[in-house]
């Protein structure tokens, strides 16, 4: 079998992992007989790797408050109502503080090595996304969830399928919160799930479940409070959980403990 001639474009596509497997194998065979070209290809691969090592940490940095939508206030007003807007602006505005001086991260202050910072960055990102999702969806009167609790089986099957891992909403009836339902949301690199609960007074609680924590190490409970929204969050294996509500730290802590116990 004659294979196609190897072009410069092929070599770059090989470096960037953009070739189909069969073609990739052909290029590998071609390179095996040409050490100089193989060295060049390796150098290009190292370049990609070095770029990621050098600049990926920027992704975990807190976004400075100077960056954002100029008319954020107006836009959020239209989307989620005045109440959510106030909370959200507070959340976005105060976000920088979470990563730098989060109140559950004393070890960071004493041991600011890169791994620690990256881990905290990932976890804080989870809390941030969860807080935003809570602020946007929990005030919804007519459409708080996509699938209601009356179809819990369907909800569980659907979200588990989309997240690629089994997820179950914990039952918090003993704590006075009943499941309303859940929805699928876009996360950092794929789908995440949000379950919503409500007590008899209409107070809402959301549990944000992400399966994007593969690279992050487990964390203990962390707490972030911004404006009226408190977030308890933790990473457990591939799963990241964030529990958000307009509740006191103590109240959230007891709910988080119950959630954690049921998810184990």
């Amino acid at each position, binding site marked *: 079998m004659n294979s196609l001639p190897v072009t410069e474009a092929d070599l770059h596509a090989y470096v960037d992992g953009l070739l189909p497997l069969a073609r990739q194998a052909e290029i590998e065979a071609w390179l095996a007989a040409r050490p100089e070209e193989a060295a060049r290809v390796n150098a290009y691969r190292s370049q990609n790797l070095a770029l990621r090592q050098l600049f990926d940490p920027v992704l975990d940095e807190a976004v400075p408050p100077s960056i954002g939508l100029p008319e954020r206030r107006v836009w959020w007003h239209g*989307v989620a109502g005045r109440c959510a807007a106030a909370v959200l602006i507070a959340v976005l505005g105060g976000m920088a503080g979470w990563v730098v001086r989060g109140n559950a991260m004393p070890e960071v202050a004493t041991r600011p090595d890169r791994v620690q910072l990256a881990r905290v960055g990932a976890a804080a990102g989870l809390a941030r996304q969860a807080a935003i999702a809570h602020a946007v969806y929990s005030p919804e009167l007519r459409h708080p969830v996509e699938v209601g609790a009356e179809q819990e089986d369907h909800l569980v099957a659907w979200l588990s399928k989309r997240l690629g891992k089994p997820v179950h909403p914990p039952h918090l009836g003993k704590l006075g919160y009943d499941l309303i339902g859940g929805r699928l949301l876009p996360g950092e690199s794929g789908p995440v799930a949000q379950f919503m609960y409500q007590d008899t007074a209409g107070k809402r609680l959301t549990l944000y479940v992400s399966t994007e924590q593969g690279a992050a190490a487990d964390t203990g409970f962390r707490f972030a409070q911004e404006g009226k929204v408190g977030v308890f969050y933790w990473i457990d294996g591939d799963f990241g959980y964030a529990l958000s509500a307009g509740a006191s730290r103590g109240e959230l802590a007891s709910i988080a403990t119950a959630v954690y116990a049921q998810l184990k």
Partner: protein
Amino acid sequence: MLDPGAEIIACIPRLRRYARALVGDPAAADDLVQDTVERGWSRMAEWRRDREMRAWLFGIMHNLHVDDLRARRLQTTALDDDLPDLAQGSNPCAGLEVRDMQAALNLLAVEQREILLLIGLEGMSYDQVAATLGMPLGTVMSRLSRGREKLRSLMEGRAAPVLPLQVVK
């Protein structure tokens, strides 16, 4: 479904990573990000739902950066203490490598640097880069090829590649 504003906000970390690599100076990079966000937001009406928000914003950033360079005429390259000190790992040598990479990157022509970054850092396909920058695929490929080779020679401490002299009879 996310609203356009939320989609823009979701893109900010990646815009910052790219701008930092493209511009070098962290403060100038963040200024570029904010200009991009504002421009994107003010032109939301021009964004089509079928177009990926990320590519659209990167295209805006590209245009803003080109305009900025044109306005300043001279491209300044920070090669002093202002380089961001990102590699504070346990390996003291890692910092040196990283510093070299940053310095070498800054020595590339901006046309090559942006293509290298969109592919190597942002993970775009060649077609996406061509669409984002509004140029033919062939131009993307030739700039990628030249940029990578230049970067390799810089990292290996060689001067820019010199074309071999032709033997003339």
